[in-house]
Structures are given as C-alpha cells and as structure tokens.
C-alpha cells in the first residue's frame, strides 16, 4: 500500500489479523520518505511483512516510471535500515523452488541445501557413477523469489485504476473515481497486476466489451481453482476486502466510490498448495 496512506490503510486491513504497532508505523513513515528521496522513486509502497522463526522481514517496494516494470524491492528488520533485494531471474526461481522448504528462518545468510543424486542409467555392469548435485540457496534469494511470485500471482488492483498507454507504459489513472458498490461486489472488476497470460485466450466477443487501455490485465475471476479469492465487506460494510486463499496473508482493500485501494502481504511466505482439498 502507498506510503502516503499507510496510517489509515493499516486499520482497514487489520481485520485479517495482522497489523503493525505504533512504533513500527512511525518508523516506516519516516524511513519510506527517506527511501523515496534516495532512490528517486515515483512512489514507495509498503509491500508487507514476511514472518520468520527468529526475525521478521519488512518489505518495501519502490515504483518508477512504468508501474509494472520499474520495480525495486527492499527489505529491513527494523523499518529503518533498508537493503536492496536482487531481482529474481528464472534460474534463481528454479533453484529456490527446489531447495527452500519450510518456514523462513529470519537470517538472510541462512543457506538451504538440497542434494540430488544423479545416476546415469544404461550401464548395469559397469560402475555406476553417482553424482551428487548440491543446490544451495540463501535466504535472501528465497525472499526475492517469494516477493516476485506473490506479486505475479496475487497482487490485485481494481479495474480502471491503471492505464496502459499505446507505448506500453503502465501508469496510475489519475481520474479513477473508484468502483461503485455494485461493481465492487463482483470479482470481475479486479485484475491481477502482472503480465497478462489469459488475455489472448479471450474470444473476440469478450474483447469487444473491454477497453484496451484499462483491460490489459488478467481478471481475478479467471483464476484456477475457482474460489481462491474471498470477497468480503468489512468495517460495517464500508470497506471491501479481498483475501487470497492461495497465498494466505495477502489482503487487498478498496473503499468503493473512492480511489483508495492497496494490498499488503503479512504472512509466512508459503503458498497454500492444499487449496483444492480445502474448498
């Protein structure tokens, strides 16, 4: 969520059970402003918190010119000193998904190991060479990959909040007035804020209703399995809260008829793969 609106947005997502105490909030407000100036971000968001066994990571994200591509992620332990996280490449993602299991420990230099034994087959008589392939991954890369995956799969924006210019630049829509009460009740009006994968599969009839400047992202209701998002009205039905069941801990809030929206992740950074059993 945007650092400008941090102080009241946190109360709106507190219904999920996680919030920051006053000390952390005040520290964040000061340090995020400093961060914005130092890195020359257009906007700084407080992305969330990943809980570990010994320590928790606070994650912030800065946005540049293009909201989708110019993203930089930083982490901190005390909301004051921020360290930059390297962006996650495909090879790192693969390594991390093989090795890192269980909860986050809380120490960025902790190393996860995974040992694979390759036995080149085909030779029964000759000596079988056993190659031990050890993949090592440290927690910092696991953190970067987790943030990247959550952004890919679970970041939500309301329809109309972002515009795509004909050059491909994604920017905030300054004249977004918010979804109306009836629109906010439908999952169709919420989009994933990541590169669209399902858009090409839509038929021309469906595309006819859509506006290419606004609808360049995937709709939430196309997610598989169906029912992996929980839409609720909270705080005496004033705030719309979307919770992801695939990444438990991700909460998106929106106040209908106002342009206020944002999402935050507070959880232990593990995907809920048991979801099909649980619905």
């Amino acid at each position, binding site marked *: 969520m945007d650092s400008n609106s941090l102080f009241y947005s946190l*109360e709106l997502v*507190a*219904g*999920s*059970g*996680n919030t920051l*105490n006053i*000390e952390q909030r005040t520290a964040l407000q000061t340090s995020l402003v400093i961060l914005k100036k130092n890195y020359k971000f257009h906007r700084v968001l407080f992305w969330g918190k990943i*809980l570990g*066994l*010994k320590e*928790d990571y606070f994650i912030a994200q800065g946005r540049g010119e293009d909201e989708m591509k110019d993203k930089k992620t930083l982490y901190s332990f005390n909301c004051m000193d921020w360290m930059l996280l390297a962006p996650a490449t495909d090879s790192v993602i693969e390594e991390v998904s093989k090795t890192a*299991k*269980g*909860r986050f420990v809380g120490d960025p230099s902790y190393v996860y190991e995974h040992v694979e034994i390759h036995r080149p087959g085909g030779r029964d008589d000759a000596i079988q060479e056993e190659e031990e392939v050890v993949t090592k991954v440290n927690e910092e890369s696991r953190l970067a990959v987790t943030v990247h995956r959550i952004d890919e799969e679970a970041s939500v924006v309301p329809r109309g909040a972002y515009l795509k210019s004909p050059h491909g630049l994604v920017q905030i829509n300054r004249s977004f007035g918010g979804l109306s*009460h009836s629109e906010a009740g439908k999952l169709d009006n919420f989009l994933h804020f990541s590169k669209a994968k399902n858009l090409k599969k839509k038929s021309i009839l469906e595309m006819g209703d859509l506006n290419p400047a606004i609808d360049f992202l995937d709709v939430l209701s196309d997610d598989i399995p169906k*029912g992996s998002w*929980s839409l*609720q*009205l*909270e*705080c*005496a*039905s*004033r705030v719309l809260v979307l*919770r992801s*069941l695939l990444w*438990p801990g991700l909460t998106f809030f929106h106040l209908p008829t106002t342009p206020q929206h944002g999402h935050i992740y507070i*959880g*232990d950074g593990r995907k809920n*793969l*048991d979801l099909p*059993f*649980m*619905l």
Partner: protein
Amino acid sequence: MESTDGNDAKSEQRLKSAAALKSFMLKSSTESKLNLYDHLSRVLLKVMDEHPDNAVDVIEDVSREVKRSTLRDLPQTTAAELLAEQQRLLFSRPEEADQEEELEMQRVFLALKQLVESQGLPRCRLWGKILGTESSYIVAEAEYREGEEEEENTEEAAEDEERDVEKEMNPLPQSAYRPPPTVPKEALGTGANKFAFYVCKEPGLPWVKLPSVSPAQITGARQIRKFFTGTLDTPIVSYPPFPGNEANYLRAQIARISAGTQVSPQGFYQAGEEEGDEEDETPRDSFEVNPDFEGVPVAEMAESLSTWVHHVQHILQQGRCTWVNLAVKPGDDSNEEGEGEEKEEEPDEPEPEMSSVLTSQHALAVLRSNLWPGAYSYASGKKFENIYVGWGLKYSGEGFSQAVPPLPQKEYPSGPEITEALDPSVEEEQVLKEALEEQQAPRKRWMTQTTRRRRMTTERT
C-alpha cells in the same frame, strides 16, 4: 345592520368552508404520502424564488419537479446503512457524530457487553476471530451459568423410535457387526467443554451459541483440512466424513486451538486445593488465580519460553481431556485397555514452537505460535491475554495429504466347498450307473447259476 350581519354570516360560512377545504387538502395521499396543501405551497414557493418566464406555461413542469425532489427523500438504504442501524443499538449512550468512525474493536467490546447482559453470563472474553471465505466469525468465550444442562436432542429419539417400529414389523436379518463404541462427550464445564462459545458475523448482529464438542468431532477435525465459509449450517464434505456441519467443525477447531495455544505466565495460576486425595494420574482440572503472583519482568518473559506455561488441558488422542475406559467386558479386554491407559496419558500434540517478540521499550512481551499461525499471547506485568485471529488451521508442514479410502475388502477365499460345479447330465449318470452295474455283474451271474441248478434238481425229482 342586517347587511353587516349578513356579511358576518357569509364570512363565517366562507371561513368554515375554507377550513374544510384546507383539512381536505391536508389529507395525505394513500399512495405517495404527500398532501396537496404542502405540495401547492412548495410549488408556489418555488415560483416565488425563481420567477420563471411564462410561469403559467411551465407550472406543470415545476409541479413535477417539486414532486420528484420530495420523493427523493426516501433514501436507498445500502447494506452499510442497515448494518450501521443495527450497530447503533450498541451505542446506548448518545454519541457524538464523529465518534461513529470507531474502530472495529470498539464495536466488538460493546457487542460483548450486550452478550453478557442478554445471556446472564458470569464471565466472558473475546476469544478471537476466525476468517472464512464468505464472511468471518467473531468468537467469544464464556463460562457456563451454574446449573446449565445439556439439551437433549428429542428429534433423534423420535427417529430411533420409528426405526424400531419398522423392524418389528419386517424383521430383517440382523448383521453381527457392532460398530466400535463411541467415546462419550465430556460433561459441560470440564475438559474441552469447559467454556461455552458464542459467534457472530459482525458486531451488532445476534450472537449464536455453538454446540458442545464431542471427541468424535475432534478426531474428525484432526484428519481434515477445510476452510470455513462463514455460514454455520454448511455441510462439511470431506473424507473421512466429518460428523456434523460447519458449526461443529468450528467448535472442534476452537477447542483444539484453545488446548494448544492458551498460555499464561508461570505462577499466575495455581492448582485448586479442593480435591483431597489427588492421584498423580488425574490431570488437574481446576485452577485458581494465584493471589501471590507478582508479575515476571518482561525481559525474562521475552527471552525464554520456560516462563510461559499452558493452562488448558491438552486433548488426548481419544478426543477428550480425561481418558475414558471403553472396555465393558471383564477379562482380557480390560487388561489391554489398562495398559493402553497408562500410555495415553501423555499429551498427544507436540509442544508448539513459539517465538517471542519484544515489541517496544514499554515492556510488552508477545508470544506468537508457530503451530497455529494466528495465535498470539501477550504479557505485561500482571496482565496477560490470549487471542487468535486467523483461518483456524494448523501449520501443516510439508503439506496435507488426504486420508486414503480403505482397500476394498477381499472376497472369501475360493475352495472346493464353495466352488460351483455343473450338475452331471443324464448321459453321464447312465454311464456311471452302467459302470456300477458291471462291477456288481459277476455276483448276479453267480446267483442265476445256482437258481438254475436248483430248478434242475427240482425238475428231476
């Protein structure tokens, strides 16, 4: 004189008829709740204010506009407003307008007060909040009133009677299968049923009491992993089938979470001294607040876990807090059960790992459970509290694997005594008969020879 009297009479009559017309105009219409008098006065006021050109031509439009604007006073009540109306009852004292932006917690506290007053509970505290896919539950934990008894389900008894009647009329072959005896529920006020739980969806809505939990439901809840939907009567579709609907599942999870995560600083509670001969095996059920407790310094509490203790009994594998011996027949069975009893007294669930976090310089120690994510406890001096806000699910480690249905039962082993064989045909029987006759044939021939000799001798003489 006559003219003035006449004038007075006429004016009186005119006044009377004017009053009559006015009361007629003041009658509100049955359909639109407007009355002609108010409407005309408003129209004329509008004409006075606006001075439209060609007023007489546009007077109908003016009248229509005035009507439309008065009708708009009936607001479209949104869901938010309806809920706000209900929650307004919580605020019994007249509140100022800007205090309506109170946080959710304030409303929850007022709702709890309402619960205590309406149900007459001795003590009540907020247990926490369980999130669901469609809506969430706010859970309150309360002590039972004295003398409260379990309500018997009369519906179930009626069904049993019907079934018995049918059986008497058409006696079907009874199967020899006796299902394993069900573990009895714990009595109200003890063990897993120590507290009563009330849930509501939003503060201000009526509280619903959850039924007491049975051991079968706890063991069932241990084997399945499901999200809550937010409505108490949804059926739980799962394997192994859960005995009950969402209200029972919710109550079972609440019992498990309480047993696993309710902690207090060491020394806060001491064992009740009412029981005379306390055996070491029976777990202590009652505890009282230790009056001598002085409060452990916060730094100590945050550093090590040994200063925190569980003050709620663990739930055994059987599903209860106290072991129940199910053996009815004497002899071998009781010996086996006796051995089992000694083993099972250890708490079944592993000690939850907790991470303590010192949150601020103003000395508050917070404990966060890793086994039940969402369970928090805090302590500061003499005060402490437990709360749970989460999805109601246990940390599952590597992943949840569903229970596999049992293998299909094997058929009776086939042997000669039950294998079918074809009945012999008529030709085969004939062949067999002839074979048997041939075996007996030499005897028959011998017999005929002797009879021939006898005949011959008789013929000679």
